[in-house]
């Protein structure tokens, strides 16, 4: 006997309440003054005694109800050995059908079903069976049952999926499922035992101590080739495919390339055993918008799902960027402009204008603005830039000599520290802290190599986020959200007047990161892994719709449209925010390698799941986790309800006596 929540015993204090009420009632009977007792007669002693006894019984029942309720909350439980529930010799046979994508190869699935059916047929009459399908998630197809027909029906209903199965994760999931089992468990794993499904640590394959593991390997020597990758450039339309032969004989395959359903090119490949063959296609002419490009191997092999690979290519639209060099340093944005011209993937179209001509520009047309020296701009220009940012624009602003002459930073309003233009041409400072997790600076540790001779020392405001700061703690780059837009403030120059950053190799990736960030995360991936989720809100498509490869509108997980599980192979179409994006979801190539683990490994694996003799004999050690506690809470609750019913009945009886009604 054990108590699962003994703290609830504190509820026994409530017993004091009926005791107190009883005492109160005994001390204060229903007493009243009467003019004379001359004609009064005391009630019959038998009736008075009956009333007292009834009241004591009522009190006892009330206390019993309270105590039973407390006991129900305390959740008493009995330790019960597993075999106690199922009778002598009964076992629970858990049949786990590997429903990963590789099980669709050849006739593996038929053999797996047959193996599972054979297991069911061999069960002893008192045994129970449970069917579990193991794919991306562990699905309980049937509950433990003695009805063989239910299990067979479950076997017939399960189909192989498209996901990869890791045996280590499977065993951990089964641990949770089997934890409450009251019978000795025999775990039958019907699988193709793919090598790629093995976990990094072999020990992860071990089931719980009390579980006997039987691996029913149904693998065969199917031949398989798969397109492992298909990569292309949206700028020039060049494509490269990598095809691997997983079989042990040479294959000759035709690789066909389709663009938007139209065959563009075909190649014949000779694939030696185990070889990876890469091939390039002629440059594709991409249509406007997303292009669905598909590579396909023919003829199909035993696993046709991995003979197709897809990629979505979208020719980038030119993105105008406005550059405003400081008037005293007309070359202030030269290095930035040059860096942007090299960023073909971002398709930035730079336009340079002077501060004086800024009034002629329609700022809203630009994706973002780069100002080399904010201090060089007049009040009108500053006001226009501020309005542009607040309405959703983005600005990269540097602080030059003209800026430090002012009392505070224009637009963002940070205060300059005394002697704002710090540093000298002799001594330099380097970058001290750098947030490489920020999208603008991801992977840019080499920025620390840059030397900064001068910078504008400012005091960051509370709403500023410091992305980079010098070794002396002075901020180098800050981010400020302003209205609906954002400002990146660089406290040194963007040319090599105050630092040597523009001549460092990291400058172009630095500008690329900033541009990508100011474009609003334009690094939209057009390929996603099978089983992953698309975070629509993060992609700015929160109000949009998503269609699966079959053209059906898909709702997000949890009923919303924020996150969508990608559980089909093909092109997902995302419509929203005035644009259409296409995401290619491809077969998990880990499932393409159909080779099974060798017999020795399989034997070692099965050896991990031998039940201990003690458990097999049914003498479970007391207190071990194999001995599941049997909760008694429902029984106690039932008794409490029974006592409550009796309390009502006795209470009514008691009232009848008090009212002098005939009993």
């Amino acid at each position, binding site marked *: 006997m054990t108590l699962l929540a003994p703290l609830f015993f504190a509820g026994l204090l409530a017993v004091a309440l009926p005791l107190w009420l009883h005492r109160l009632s005994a001390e204060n009977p229903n007493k009243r003054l009467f003019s004379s007792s001359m004609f*009064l007669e005391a009630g019959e002693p038998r009736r008075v005694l009956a009333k007292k006894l009834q009241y004591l019984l009522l009190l006892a029942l009330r206390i019993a109800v309270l105590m039973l309720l407390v006991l129900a909350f305390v959740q008493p439980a009995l330790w019960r050995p597993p075999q106690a529930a199922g009778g002598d010799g009964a076992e629970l046979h858990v049949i786990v059908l590997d429903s990963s994508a590789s099980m669709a190869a050849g006739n593996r699935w038929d053999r797996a079903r047959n193996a599972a059916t054979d297991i069911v047929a061999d069960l002893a009459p008192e045994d129970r069976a449970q069917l579990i399908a193991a794919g991306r998630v562990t699905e309980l197809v049937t509950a433990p049952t003695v009805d063989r027909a239910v299990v067979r029906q479950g076997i017939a209903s399960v189909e192989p999926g498209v996901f990869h199965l890791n045996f280590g994760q499977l065993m951990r999931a089964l641990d949770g499922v089997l934890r409450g089992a009251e019978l000795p468990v025999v775990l039958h794993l019907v699988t193709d035992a793919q090598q790629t499904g093995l976990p990094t640590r072999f020990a992860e394959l071990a089931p719980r101590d009390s579980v006997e593991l039987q691996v029913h390997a149904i693998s065969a020597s199917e031949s398989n080739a798969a397109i492992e990758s298909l990569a292309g450039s949206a700028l020039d339309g060049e494509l490269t495919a990598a095809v691997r032969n997983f079989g042990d004989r040479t294959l000759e395959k035709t690789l066909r390339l389709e663009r938007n359903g139209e065959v563009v090119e075909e190649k014949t490949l000779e694939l030696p055993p185990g070889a990876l063959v890469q091939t390039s296609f002629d440059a594709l002419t991409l249509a406007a918008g997303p292009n669905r490009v598909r590579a396909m191997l023919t003829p199909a092999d035993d696993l046709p799902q991995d003979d197709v690979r897809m990629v979505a290519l979208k020719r980038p639209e030119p993105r105008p960027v406005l550059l405003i060099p400081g008037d005293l340093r007309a070359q202030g944005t030269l290095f930035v402009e040059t860096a942007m011209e090299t960023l073909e993937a971002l398709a930035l179209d730079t336009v340079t204008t002077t501060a004086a001509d800024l009034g002629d520009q329609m700022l809203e047309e630009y994706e973002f603005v780069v100002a080399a020296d904010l201090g060089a701009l007049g009040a009108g220009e500053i006001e226009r830039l501020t309005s542009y940012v607040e309405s959703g624009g983005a600005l990269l602003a540097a602080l030059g000599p003209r800026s430090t002459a002012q009392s505070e930073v224009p637009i963002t309003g940070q205060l300059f520290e005394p002697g704002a233009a710090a540093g000298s041409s002799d001594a330099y400072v380097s970058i001290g802290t750098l947030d490489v997790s920020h999208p603008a600076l991801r992977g840019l540790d080499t920025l620390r190599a840059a030397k900064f001779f001068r910078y504008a020392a400012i005091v960051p405001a509370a709403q500023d986020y410091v992305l980079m700061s010098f070794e002396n703690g002075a901020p180098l780059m800050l981010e400020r959200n302003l209205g609906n837009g954002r400002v990146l403030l660089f406290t040194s120059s963007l040319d090599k007047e105050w630092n040597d950053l523009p001549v460092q190799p990291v400058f172009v990736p630095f500008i690329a990161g900033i541009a990508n960030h100011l474009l609003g995360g334009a690094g939209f991936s057009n390929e996603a892994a099978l089983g992953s989720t698309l975070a629509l809100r993060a992609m700015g498509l929160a109000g949009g719709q998503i269609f699966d490869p079959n053209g059906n509108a898909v709702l997000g997980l949890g009923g919303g449209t924020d996150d969508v599980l990608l559980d089909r192979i093909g092109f997902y179409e995302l419509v929203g925010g005035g644009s259409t994006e296409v995401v290619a979801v491809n077969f998990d190539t880990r499932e393409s390698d159909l080779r099974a683990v060798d017999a020795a490994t399989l034997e070692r694996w099965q050896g991990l799941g031998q039940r201990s003799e003690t458990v097999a004999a049914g003498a479970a050690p007391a207190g071990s986790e194999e001995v599941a506690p049997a909760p008694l809470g429902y029984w106690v609750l039932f008794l409490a309800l029974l006592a409550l019913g009796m309390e009502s009945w006795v209470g009514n009886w008691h009232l009848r006596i008090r009212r002098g009604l005939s009993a």
Partner: protein
Amino acid sequence: MPAAGPTIPRHLLQPEVLAGLANLDLIARAVVEGFLTGMHRSPFFGFSQEFAEYRAYSEGDDPRFVDWNVYARTDRTYIKRYVGETNTHLVILLDASASMGFGSKAVTKLTYGKYLAATLAYLAARQHDAVGLIVFDQDVREHRRPSSRPGHLQGVLHAIDRAEPGTGTDLKVPIERFREFEKGRGLVAVISDFYCEPEALLAGVRPLAYQGQDVVLFQLLDPEELKPELKESALLQDMESGETVEVSPIFMRSRYREKIDAHVESLKKAAIGAGADHSLVDITQPLDAALRSYLLFRQRRG
């Protein structure tokens, strides 16, 4: 016809209405005036100021009653006398024991008894009867000998007003006090709940009858004493002895009612046996029934 008729402003006689009046004198006046106003066509009309005879003025008579018209014609002073002022005296024995403090509604038995006593005193004084008062429980707590002197009524009313529930009841004590001081014939009104044995009542009243007194017994009882309604078993405590008895609703609805009815009936028989009148008064009822009972009694004995 003896009925007072519908013209009596009965609401003025309701005990709960009277309880709202602060002054016992005012209560008595309101009751009597209201009662008599409604009786102007009743057989009791003759009890008002009806001329009876002249008698020669003697020293000590009130000069206000000298008939100056006769004096002008005959040059002799005569006192004009009326029927009602020639007869008798009324002594009220008011029980102020603890049990009289019982009452389930607006007024207790003692309060009702005080209203009744004051009203009787006022009515008698109005007819120039001498009015006396004995307030008692186990002892005599107030004693006012009968007198028709001006201002005596006020003293009687004040004595009634002062009465508060006391201890137990002993009917023999006030009667012995009465017999000790009052030798002449007269009227005796005993106001009590008479929680005593009929034999004890008989023993007390009979000597009065032998003395030539005309006795009327007003037995005041609350409806809860006559027809108690208990919803559940209760511990009832005697207001005089403090004794507690646990009774059941069944008993109070059946056996108790039989016993109290038998007791009232026994008292009535005992009263008749002693030559007295007995009147059972429900203290939730207006006072006119008790007054009418008194006037009938007064007429019969007058």
